[in-house]
């Protein structure tokens, strides 16, 4: 959240994105004011609510800006290539996430090694033992994000937010209010 107070981050996000927020978890505030638990995930989505990218956990303003620019520039590439169907977007962003995996985490996979893209109408949550096994192939949270979005490209946010928070950030999804121990 501190990254969002930076002028350059604010200007960029306000120019290229429409922003919102949502409570998906909780934490405990002790009597001494210490926080127990809690985390944050930043989603970059299409106007249809399809996830192009996620930044898992708190990051610096520079890092958030870098990731936002990557999303926006990759999106411009999709526009230039007239990738107007979900299938075309899936292929383009799968390749983009695979490229990041290779460049940033030295994990080289080709699209042919991955399962076939899911149907654009799929609604079931992307989670379970198979997904956990997939994510366990890499250690760093951001590498897990790239791997998840390479295999399950451009999913609806409702399908992946649970996996991002619980399997990548190790923070339980919860609708309960913040607990204050007085």
């Amino acid at each position, binding site marked *: 959240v501190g990254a969002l*107070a930076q*002028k350059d981050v604010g200007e960029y996000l306000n120019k290229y994105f429409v*922003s919102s927020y949502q409570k998906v978890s909780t934490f405990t505030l002790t009597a001494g004011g210490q*926080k127990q638990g*809690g985390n*944050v995930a930043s989603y970059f989505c299409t106007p249809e609510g399809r996830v192009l990218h996620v930044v898992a956990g708190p990051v610096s303003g520079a890092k958030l800006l870098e990731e936002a620019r990557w999303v926006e520039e990759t999106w411009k590439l999709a526009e230039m290539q007239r990738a*107007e169907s979900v299938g075309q977007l899936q292929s383009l962003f799968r390749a983009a996430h695979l490229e990041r995996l290779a460049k940033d985490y030295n994990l080289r996979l080709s699209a042919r090694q991955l399962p076939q893209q899911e149907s*654009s109408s799929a609604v079931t949550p992307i989670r379970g033992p198979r997904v956990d096994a997939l994510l366990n192939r890499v250690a760093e949270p951001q590498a897990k994000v790239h791997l998840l979005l390479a295999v399950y490209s451009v999913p609806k946010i409702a399908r992946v937010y649970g996996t991002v928070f619980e399997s990548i950030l190790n923070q339980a999804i*919860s609708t309960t209010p913040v607990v204050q121990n007085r």
Partner: protein
Amino acid sequence: VQPQKPVSAASAAKRNAQPAKEAKSGPTPPPPPVLAVNHIAKEPRAPEQVEFSTAGPPAKDPVQSVVQQVTVKKEQSVCSTQTCKGNDNFCGTAVAFLPSPKLAEEEAAKQHKLVFVLHVSGNFEDPGFT
């Protein structure tokens, strides 16, 4: 396969247009220290935050670190973009937030922009509860 809206050159130009709300701040913006004082004075929780941010070594809890970063930023120069002055939609950041992802998606479709959604633990509107 769901077809998506084609993106025209006109819509791309609209996406690159500067937001009109920045013109509201007037020709000569006030100096940052004055803004910071004004902003903190409007928030009843501010004294607690300042004390919290300066106490002890850096926290290991990532969320606590985030709150500390926000607080330090407020002490230095709150709302350096001058777009959030007196506007609760910024939630103490330099980013304009709509109150729900659904609204953001609708607005993004109109403006031919993408959507940025923050998933948080706690209440984002309250700096002490995220």
